[in-house]
């Protein structure tokens, strides 16, 4: 079953064609990697899918429902989750409250219920807090629950961001460089976590990543973007040996020959 | 037709004043990305200082003008060094809050030293008060002095920016502070000079204008709002825009005052600010669209 369908997506910023006729499908339960040199348009692609920027052409559907042109909150309610390259945990809240925010759109208490602290509002808060604890336990971060959102290392923050996204029970999660700056051990942990998320929760994942080890290890398929154009798509081993891909990366640390061996 | 001529002359003169103050606002904005809320009050202090020199101590007008400009320069430098630089890394809102605080300190100090809320200090004009006729329009000579003075200051300033080394450094810092630092430009010192010059310009404007409008402690804020409207209308990043904006606001004010009602005069600048910021934030001449942030 196709979870995400992207057709002919194009967008330009001030004369620069950031995305050029990009099309691909993602099946439910897949883990897709998106790679490409810097400035290739990868984050723009995620931004466009999640509604933060509007494409000039093309269509996107999530689980059959068209989402092009919808605003981010609406797309989120249709089952899309997202994490960001620069940690977007809210500094003004504790980790627990951050994760509770992930359930915002599913909670019902309005301003009046909140102001008067009605019993149903309090129950809802309690239930949400419990779910947030569970989510933190799932990613192994529950001991930081009462820390301020940003008093932790970037790696930890990113994992918590994942928890915050997961708590909303999304169908598809977009991850922007979840592994950047992580040590070898942490990358392995992230690998395991991503697999668990896919296997145990049935969530489809799309991730932009530069960390080769992770891409090769956990992705079912890989997409390669260069200058806004999709230049390759397929299994990690195939893509990495593709001469066009190698050429795009020439000069950077992404040494395909070293990987293929 | 007579009235139109009169309004036109009046609008241009007032406009020249706004242009001058807007120039100071824009210069500081370009260099530091922050709007100096206290700019108008620095102007006001410059005027009062000139008043002290010229009226209270009897020094000749031109000497008082030069001293006021020098004082403005010094005050601007001190303010930057002491109040603004420590906050520069902390974000624009902190700077704005500090500038607001400064504005009130200056106002209160002026009130305490020179006069209370209701006192309007008269400043004797430099030229004879009797109006002369130019092309059938009656003009008070002081207006010509203001216009001439304003144009002179703007010309000096334009030349300074283009021709002197400091001016070019300021330009570079304004365009890209990080790059400027990398190239070795002493950015902090440039900021000090920028503030100093911006305040000196304000001081000169005050002295030029004092004979026409009376001087009072609250004038700083009023002038700031109007000049800010001018700067925003012209596009906060454009120096010629600030000048154009100043004249436009001056004209809008006098025209609406003359043809609609005097009461509308003040409110026109508020409306301009609201409309421009919401619908056309880059103003008339602002190159890059003004960042939302």
């Amino acid at each position, binding site marked *: 079953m196709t979870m995400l369908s992207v057709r002919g997506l194009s967008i330009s910023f001030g004369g620069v064609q950031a995305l050029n006729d990009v099309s691909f499908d993602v099946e439910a339960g897949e883990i897709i990697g998106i790679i490409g040199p810097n400035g290739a348009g990868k984050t723009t692609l995620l931004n466009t899918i*999640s509604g933060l920027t509007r494409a000039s052409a093309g269509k996107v559907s999530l689980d059959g429902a068209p989402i092009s042109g919808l605003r*981010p*909150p609406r797309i*989120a309610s249709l089952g*899309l989750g*997202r994490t*960001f390259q*620069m940690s*977007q*945990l*809210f*500094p*003004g*809240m*504790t980790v627990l*409250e951050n994760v509770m*925010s*992930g359930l*915002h*759109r599913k909670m019902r208490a*309005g301003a009046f219920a*909140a*102001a008067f*602290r009605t019993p149903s509002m309090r129950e809802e*808060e*309690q239930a949400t*807090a*419990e779910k947030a*604890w569970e989510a933190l336990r799932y990613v192994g971060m529950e001991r930081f629950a*009462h820390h*301020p959102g*940003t008093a932790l290392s970037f790696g930890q923050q990113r994992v918590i961001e994942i928890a915050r*996204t997961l708590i*909303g029970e999304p169908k598809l999660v977009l991850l922007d460089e979840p592994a950047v700056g992580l040590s070898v051990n942490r990358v392995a942990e992230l690998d395991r976590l991503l697999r668990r998320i896919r296997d145990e929760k049935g969530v489809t994942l799309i991730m932009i990543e530069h960390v080769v080890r992770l891409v090769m290890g956990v992705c079912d398929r890989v997409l390669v973007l260069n200058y806004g154009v999709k230049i390759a798509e397929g299994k990690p081993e195939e893509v990495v040996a593709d001469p066009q891909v190698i050429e795009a990366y020439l000069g950077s640390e992404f040494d395909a020959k070293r990987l293929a061996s | 037709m007579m009235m139109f001529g009169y309004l036109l002359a009046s609008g241009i003169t007032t406009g020249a004043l706004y242009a001058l103050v807007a120039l100071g606002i824009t210069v500081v904005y370009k260099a530091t990305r922050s709007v100096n809320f206290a700019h108008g009050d620095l102007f006001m202090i410059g005027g009062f200082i000139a008043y002290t020199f010229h009226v209270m101590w009897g020094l000749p007008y031109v000497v008082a003008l030069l001293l006021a400009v020098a004082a403005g320069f010094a005050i601007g430098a001190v303010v930057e060094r002491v109040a603004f630089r*420590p*906050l520069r*890394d*902390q*974000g624009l*809102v902190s700077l704005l*809050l*500090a500038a*607001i*605080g*400064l504005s009130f*300190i200056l*106002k*209160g*100090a002026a009130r*305490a030293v020179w006069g*209370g809320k209701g006192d309007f200090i008269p400043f004797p004009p430099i030229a004879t008060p009797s109006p002369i006729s130019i092309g059938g329009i009656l003009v008070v000579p002081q207006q010509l002095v203001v216009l001439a003075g304003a144009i002179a200051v703007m010309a000096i300033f334009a030349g300074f920016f283009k021709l002197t080394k400091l001016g070019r450094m300021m330009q570079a810092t304004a365009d890209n502070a990080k790059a400027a630092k990398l190239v070795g430009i002493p950015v902090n010192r440039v900021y000090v000079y920028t503030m100093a010059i911006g305040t000196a310009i304000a001081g000169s404007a005050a002295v030029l204008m004092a004979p026409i409008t009376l001087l009072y402690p609250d004038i700083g804020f009023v002038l700031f*709002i109007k000049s800010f409207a001018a700067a925003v209308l012209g596009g906060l990043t454009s120096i010629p825009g600030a000048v154009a904006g100043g004249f436009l606001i001056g004209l809008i004010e006098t025209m609406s005052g003359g043809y609609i009602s005097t*009461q509308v005069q*003040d409110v026109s*600048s508020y409306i301009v*600010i609201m409309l421009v*910021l*919401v619908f056309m*934030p880059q103003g008339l001449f602002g190159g890059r669209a003004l960042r939302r*942030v």
Partner: protein
Amino acid sequence: MRLLLGSRPFLILMFSALAIVPVVANPYILYVCNLGMLYVILAVGLNILVGYAGQFALANAAMFGIGAYGAGLLQVKLGAPYFLAAPGGAVLAMLIGTVIVFPALRLSGIYLGLSTLAFAMFSQWVLLHWNSVTFGGGGFPAPHLDLSPLPIGPDTGIYYLSWLVTMALVAFAWSLVRSRIGRAFVAVRDGEIAAQSLGIDLLRYKALAFAISGFYAGAAGALYAPLLGYVAPEGFDLFQMIIQKSMIVVGGMGSVLGSVLGAAVMVFLLELLRAFKSTQEIVFGSILIVFVMFRPRGLVTLLQRLPGWDEPLSSFDPRRLFAPAASAPATPPLAATRELADGGRR
């Protein structure tokens, strides 16, 4: 036992103390405490907009004026009884305040501040010049509170009414910020992009913040009219706005208790320096600068250092609002505990 210290006991203590003021104090003190409570309302409302939701708007003093004018004019021109005119004034301020959300969607930081300031000055101008409706610059006398059948004088009457309203509004704010709505505000402030991706509608929550602060300011205004017995444009000008801003900077942005503290401190200073307007200006200006430079997170941070203090973390550092660096400065870890969350731990 963890809850011994916290904003709740402080507030309860304070309101209890305020309850007995009319019995023990002279009319001047009564007036000052009454005024103080109104400033608490103003500060709490402003804090929700600026401290929690991060919208740096400078129109609150104008909303205060609209509330006072609304309540006063409804009574004087339409003969409405106070218990209708007062909410009327508050609602009017709320509606007008909400309109400001539209520029807030496109502007932020100092541009929002200056455009809302322009709006405030525009409203001030309307109050000053729309003579037929607002009585122009001279203002007009507003009726004192008349609780006729009850044996309570107007001064005491308005005091207790203010006391009740202040308690209610502070309690609402206190609950609101400890809820999903409060988290939504902080999310909008701290990370609009992530907030959207979590399903938080920016327009809705910004509008809510503007509406709430407008309502609070309007309510304060509606209580101010009978307190003063007069409504005139001067009390709602830039200086008033700066006083309110100073209250929340000094007290602590992003904290209900901070608003209360700030209001108390400022009212105290205002009255102390009442005779000398110029000194008031110098003192307020200096306080603002000193706090912004040295204690931007407000006095409430001193209280938060007490061991066992229970207060949510949303305390806001104004430095974070458009700080040039991409990452926020790390906040010191506070050992805040919340009964709610610990329930989930077992």
